[in-house]
């Protein structure tokens, strides 16, 4: 079997529902003496959501940076869309990042570019797509998150919530199959945070994007895990309480001292008798 056959097999496997799209196997990372991740293993299945909870400094954002190759694990194996990212160099990682979108804390929008240029950045700069087509995609994506009229504004002219939503639009513009949210709702008021949560739910349920949501905002974590998006015949999108099956597709991970101290769905998390979890949830 040559390499092309192998690649086709990987693609075929990843096309199947419930395929593992991100896999962490005994990952360890330390910065000098400070151990951030001790022994972390988990798997994100296609179309599912992984919600990583934990106190500040517990390694949540670090986990996302390892997935995108912005940081390299000291030990362990990391698979993303069939590629072992722990073995890839920066140039090889670019191909993996083509199917990976990340929403950073505070949005990390390019402050010298307009909303249009931010959202279409990857398509304008890194692809051969004609400008008209990119413009159409940018307008479509901004319409999806309800910020179409802000297309020619600068990021400094947007509110915190709008900036996060533009960051989501930028991450989804090139249609990645995996989206990583790093504290996407931190620092936002509850109403604005809910609009961001709704985008996460819509992308997962309507665009079939697999997601990893890092947060310490319990309200948002449970909202994303227990709601689902549906589009009716007229094309109108509604967010409603998730069915039990859908709820099971969202799994929580609790990080503590670089280790996973809980893994399970929303119901299991609520029922946990672990003192640390109870304190965290209170």
């Amino acid at each position, binding site marked *: 079997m040559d390499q092309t056959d192998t690649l086709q097999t990987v693609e075929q496997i990843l096309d199947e529902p419930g395929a593992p799209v991100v896999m962490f196997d005994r990952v360890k990372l330390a910065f000098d003496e400070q151990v951030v991740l001790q022994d972390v293993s988990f798997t994100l299945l296609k179309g599912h959501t992984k919600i990583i909870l934990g106190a500040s400094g517990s390694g949540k954002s670090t986990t996302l940076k390892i997935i995108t190759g912005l940081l390299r694990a000291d030990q362990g194996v990391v698979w993303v869309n069939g590629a072992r990212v722990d073995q890839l160099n920066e140039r090889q990682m670019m191909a993996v990042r083509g199917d990976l979108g990340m929403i950073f*804390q505070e949005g990390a929008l*390019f*402050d010298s570019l307009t909303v249009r240029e931010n959202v279409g950045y990857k398509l304008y*700069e890194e692809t051969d797509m004609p400008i008209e087509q990119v413009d159409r995609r940018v307008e479509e994506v901004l319409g999806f998150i309800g910020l179409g009229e802000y297309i020619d504004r600068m990021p400094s002219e947007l509110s915190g919530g709008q900036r996060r939503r533009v960051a989501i639009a*930028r991450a989804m513009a090139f249609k990645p199959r995996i989206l990583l949210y790093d504290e996407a709702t931190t620092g936002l008021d509850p109403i604005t945070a809910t609009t961001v949560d709704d985008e996460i739910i819509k992308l997962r349920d309507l665009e079939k994007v697999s997601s990893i949501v890092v947060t310490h905002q319990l309200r948002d974590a449970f909202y994303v895990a227990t709601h689902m998006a549906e589009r009716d015949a007229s094309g109108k999108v509604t967010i409603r309480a998730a069915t039990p099956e859908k709820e099971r597709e969202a799994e929580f991970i609790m990080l503590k001292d670089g280790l996973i101290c809980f893994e399970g769905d929303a119901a299991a998390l609520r029922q946990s008798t672990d003192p640390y979890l109870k304190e965290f949830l209170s």
Partner: protein
Amino acid sequence: MIPLINSWLKKAAQEVQEYVCLVGATLQAIVSPPLYRHDIVEQIDQIGVGSLTVVLLTGFFTGAALASQSGLTLDQFGARPVVGRLVSASMIKELGPVLTALMLTGRIGSGIAAELGSMVVTDQINALRALGTDPIRKLVVPRVLAGFLMAPVLTVVADFVGIFGGWIVARFQLQVATGLYWSSVTQGLYMQDVWMGLIKPFALGFVIVTIACHVGLRTRGGTQGVGKATTIAVVAGSVAVIAVDFFVTQLLISLIY
């Protein structure tokens, strides 16, 4: 005391190592695709055209002051008519390249360090990488190429304006005839001097921008860190300009004279 010196030396060695790595990665990125052409043009405009005013003013007043000062000294030997020779040789060989480079360090070195530094602390560099863009190719290469190409152009402008400033002083203050001044300017120049004045700015432009990019990309610690990076870029860039000028001068003297 010794552990302190050890730690300082280690830090300095690490800094130099990372600078060399950045320069290596930049050179590699220059000769391989993709090249962000519109960013290069934009940087040429910002670094070249944007620095024109400051370079024109610096060059003019330096040439004028040089003529004024040297006129006094030359009077002691009755050699006032050769003031043009002194102005042109000083401007083209030394003052033009060094002063232009120092002005560029202040103007673009600080700007680059502040811009890249803010991008680092607001996660924009990580966002670029996550979007599949190599920050070296997108941000460093255009600036380095623009600095490398525009420093010699600006130096030539500064030289010319400096000699012109010298003529104003020579003509109206020192009462040296225009024809005498300009013939003295050309008589005092050798081809080696012109090469010296043209080659040095390439090295200085490269050093200023690579140091600023290195300092900017290593920024840590929020807005305070950005301020610190800006200061370091200007100080380190200015010292490097003087040092590199000395070494390149020595090299060129041994090679072309």
